[in-house]
């Protein structure tokens, strides 16, 4: 008897009757060994990378040394050097930090925009929704690459922030869509109607009633987005629209593999970065999938 209404409206995730959302997420991760190891790994990487790069002399890392170009790994250069004689290990650390920063920044910004947009659109519905969806459709068809190129050319200082802003401009739509459709479902639930009869304002309902109920789906999506965004940064660098080499990123290091000589003979330049991307993305993805399972009662493992 106690089954119908909620599920009709929302049959993809079933947080409504679960124990506290956060605890479930945590429990699911701990229970899933792979996800747990992944999480530990991510935390270690983050702590390590941000920690070390505090001590590391960044100028030193990007200093060109004509006499140690393309050195293979040695005790002096743990991961060898690149075509500018620069230490790859140092670049890997700083690069990981930069890539992570971008990934996190973009994920957060797209999250904020997407959530706000989706919430308003889904909650108010009707004409507002219609207009918002048209705006969203329009963003979907914009030529991402071209705009990135334009910005790369006209923005004088291409910093992590400006780069993230550009990426954000094109990546908020997915989450906005998701939040909108979830909001559409959520707002039909009686608790929202109840809040209305209790005299709460629309915005209060939206942000204090509806939003918390989307939190798990938001966490899941953002986690998965984080992985995707890190990947995207490297893709742009590959095409040559990432950062200057003075701001190393994982993508820059990988993009050196465009040089067939590097790809074939100088594995130490691109392979560690590629592996790191792969493992980082796998880890983040593992955590994300575990979280996703946690929000989907039927797939929960325990």
């Amino acid at each position: 008897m106690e089954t119908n209404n909620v599920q009709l409206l929302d049959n993809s995730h079933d947080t409504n009757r679960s124990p506290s959302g956060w605890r479930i997420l945590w429990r699911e991760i701990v229970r899933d060994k792979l996800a747990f190891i992944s999480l530990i790994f991510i935390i270690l990487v983050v702590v390590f990378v941000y920690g070390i790069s505090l001590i590391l002399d960044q100028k030193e890392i990007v200093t060109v040394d004509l006499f140690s170009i393309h050195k293979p790994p040695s005790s002096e250069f743990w991961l060898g050097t690149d075509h500018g004689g620069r230490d790859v290990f140092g670049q890997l650390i700083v690069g990981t930090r930069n890539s992570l920063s971008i990934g996190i920044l973009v994920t957060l910004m797209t999250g904020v925009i997407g959530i706000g947009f989706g919430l308003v659109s889904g909650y108010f519905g009707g004409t507002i929704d219609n207009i918002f969806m048209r705006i969203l459709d329009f963003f979907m068809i914009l030529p991402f690459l071209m705009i990135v190129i334009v910005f790369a050319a006209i923005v004088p200082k291409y910093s992590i922030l400006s780069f993230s802003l550009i990426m954000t401009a094109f990546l908020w739509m997915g989450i906005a869509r998701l939040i909108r459709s979830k909001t559409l479902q959520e707002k039909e639930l009686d608790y929202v109607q109840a809040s209305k009869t209790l005299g709460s304002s629309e915005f209060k309902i939206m942000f204090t009633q509806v939003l918390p109920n989307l939190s798990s789906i938001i966490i899941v999506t953002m986690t998965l987005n984080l992985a995707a965004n890190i990947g995207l940064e490297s893709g742009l660098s590959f095409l040559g629209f990432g950062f200057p080499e003075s701001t190393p990123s994982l993508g820059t290091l990988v993009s050196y593999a465009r040089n067939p000589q590097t790809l074939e003979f100088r594995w130490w330049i691109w392979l560690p970065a590629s592996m790191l991307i792969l493992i980082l993305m796998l880890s983040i993805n593992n955590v994300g999938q575990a979280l996703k399972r946690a929000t989907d009662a039927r797939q929960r493992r325990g």
Partner: protein
Amino acid sequence: MWKFTVRRIGIMIPQIILLSILIFILAKMMPGDALSGMIDPNVDPSTIEAQREKLGLNNPWYIQYIDWLKGVIQGDFGQSFRFKMPVTELISQRLINTIWLSVVTLILTYLIAIPLGITSGRYNDTWADRLITGYTYIGFAAPLFIFALVMLWMFGFNLGWFPTGGSVKPGLTPGTFEYVISKINHLLLPALSMALIATVSTVQYLRSEIIDIKQKDFILTAKAKGASESRIYNRHILRNSLLPIAAFFGYEITGLIGGTIFIENIFGYPGMGQLFFESILLRDYSVVTSVVLLFGIASIIGALISDIILSLIDPRIRIK
């Protein structure tokens, strides 16, 4: 149905116009133009200036835009500066290649996704499922360009199974059997590389869809009818779970467009993605604008197709 299509197209038009204006403004914002870097000390700068004038590059963007729009309305997308040929013609050459690439990629994507997704969904939590899920994770994590490079390396060079550039072997007459075979041969590696990555989301989607539907009440109904396991899968679960996949088809197009830019670059495959990339670097604006517009239209049409497919195969979504 028709009304719906007409309506969607109605919405499309302002979007496309807006898009084209935006592209124009952006193009204007980019430093340089088609004549940048045509530096030849023997050529009087005034000649270049005259050419700029002739090409209308010195006009304000809206004048250029209106001129261009006038042409477009008459089916003329202007002249490629670099290729000295009508954009329409240039694009149609490249478009065919890209369409072939996309079609083969799509086919491969589904050829891979459907069996994998079904296996993984039907036998979830078995070793086969874990294997497939593992693949999807890695596929999700691996950047397309690295993957493509490695594929090229492995199968193009080390093993030599596939050609490593171009869209067809030189010297074959279009239309002949050999020509077609050669075309397909050139397509396979890039298409496969893209498909192996692109298929990942479809596999994941199909898997969770099947797991989802497996637990629906109507499956119980079917069981209670005395339907066998395989019949339940074939008649009920697959039919229902492939539906969103089919509907997703249109949106795949948008994804493909992004992918072709990488793939065509890496495999030296002369298609729209490569054309777009080159034209942007060389500021061949009429081409850029047209290509972007085409991409935009393709995405919109993709979405439209998805909606139409969905409304055709899902009776619950009725479109008047």
